[in-house]
């Protein structure tokens, strides 16, 4: 019997992830599938602040290091949040993926690493650029088979 593909859920360590995480857990238990928690470490910041070129030697890189630190803390918070909810689910695991949130979540499905993706309407907004505001809507537009809470 071939193993069933996991359900992936976008988790960001904030209360906004509680509902999607609960829904993903419910689906995973009902369907007997593994559960994959995902936090995307947004690598788009360098380009986002790239409109500006009048930087000081330490200002731009200092800022990027600062933001990276914040994103890594948020990733840890997401991991803790995921672990707390899935402690009774042996087939649950968590991954931090660097990249563009929209692209990475789509790629996860495209690569066949998960079959269903659960994303809350405010996923990654606690730590993200304005473009993640419509992440769930953009995902829905890209793939009609996505399950969105």
């Amino acid at each position, binding site marked *: 019997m071939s193993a069933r593909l996991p359900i992936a859920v976008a988790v960001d360590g904030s209360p906004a992830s509680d509902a999607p995480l609960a829904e993903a857990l419910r689906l995973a238990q009902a369907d007997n599938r593994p559960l994959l928690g995902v936090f995307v470490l947004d690598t788009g910041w360098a380009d986002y*602040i790239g*409109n*500006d*070129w*009048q930087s*000081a030697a*330490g*200002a*731009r890189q200092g800022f990027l290091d600062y933001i990276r630190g914040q994103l890594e803390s948020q990733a840890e918070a997401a991991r803790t949040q995921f672990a707390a909810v899935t402690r009774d689910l042996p087939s649950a695991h968590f991954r931090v993926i660097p990249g563009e949130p929209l692209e990475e979540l789509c790629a996860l499905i495209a690569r066949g690493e998960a079959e269903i993706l659960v994303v809350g309407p405010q996923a990654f907004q606690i730590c993200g650029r304005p473009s993640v505001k419509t992440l769930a809507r953009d995902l829905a537009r890209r793939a009609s088979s996505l399950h969105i809470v």
Partner: protein
Amino acid sequence: MTTAKETGFVGKLPGALPGLALLIGTMVVIRLWVEPWMANAVVFGQKGWLIKVTHLNYILLGIIMGMLYRNVLFGGKLPEVFADGFRLSRLFIKTGIILLGSLYTVQAIVKLGALAIFLIGGFVVLSIVMVLWLGKLFGMERSMTGVMANACSICGVSAAVATAPAVEAKAAHVAYAIATILGFGILTMFISPFIGHALGLNDLQYGAWVGTGILNSGQVLAACLAFNPTVAPGTAVSVGEIWNIMRVISIPFAVFAVTVWYWAGHEQPQGQRKSLTTLLVEKFPVFVLGFLGMVLLTSIGAFGDAGIKGGPPASATIKMIRDWMQWIFGIGLVGMGGYIDFKELRQAGGTPLKVGLIVGVTKYVLALVVVLLIRDYLVEI
């Protein structure tokens, strides 16, 4: 992920060639074919209508093309093959600003600088105070207020990223501040030339207004060149940029002031405490030193006569440098257009947008009023 730091500039160059080729090719087509065609095309029975009425020149056309590449042709994201070349375009603009130093002598800077310091200083302080007050009024988070205060008062993105770590701003705060100031700046970049021409402003008045009223440095440059693409002493870009340089220099001071405000009454964590000297070293814009070096070289006649008003005409070297600058800025600004992401800008909103718009519009309009009031006292160079 490969970065410029890991591979070095030379190692990165081959990967940047496709993007650079696109930027240079775009500017060549615009300057050699599109602009001359627009100047000669007869529309509504009038030759050159397209330029006279729309005020489009190679600068605005370049920025528009960059925006179209990213947002229309490439669907919102620069393809990897072009990304490194577009990133390098920042270097073009920085280099151009350094070369702009050839438009001034030390005496001219001293003459113009005193008024610029007075005006810029006044507007920086006014904007900071206004944002702090509005932040309190609208109940905006203190760290967000700190980022917005410097972003709206000094130099847009540079100031926002320089201030964020010092006031513990969240990533999302910085993102919204940047989206707000860039959105406002892009709008002013396109409408300012129209307003300037409609009000019959001369280069001196326009440069002083735009240099004071527009939030972001790149946009000041673009707005000046859009008004008058000539790069020479006394043109809009020479006035606007000296204003802008004065403001950029104040970044470390403003970061220090806002940090003191943010931590007032609280114990700042040991690792985050920075003296003004440390901030000056860390946050001082390095290219300004290059610009000042160029001013010094021009002043001692290293490139021959500078062509300052009232003096002998510019030497062949100086003329060549100024020709290069037009190309360098043109190519760099296509790249800048390529970094304008409609999707990011559209999603700015909430209180930061409200505060940014109130302060931005106030500053923009007030700067115009002040420049018109003191037009007889503006010093020509």
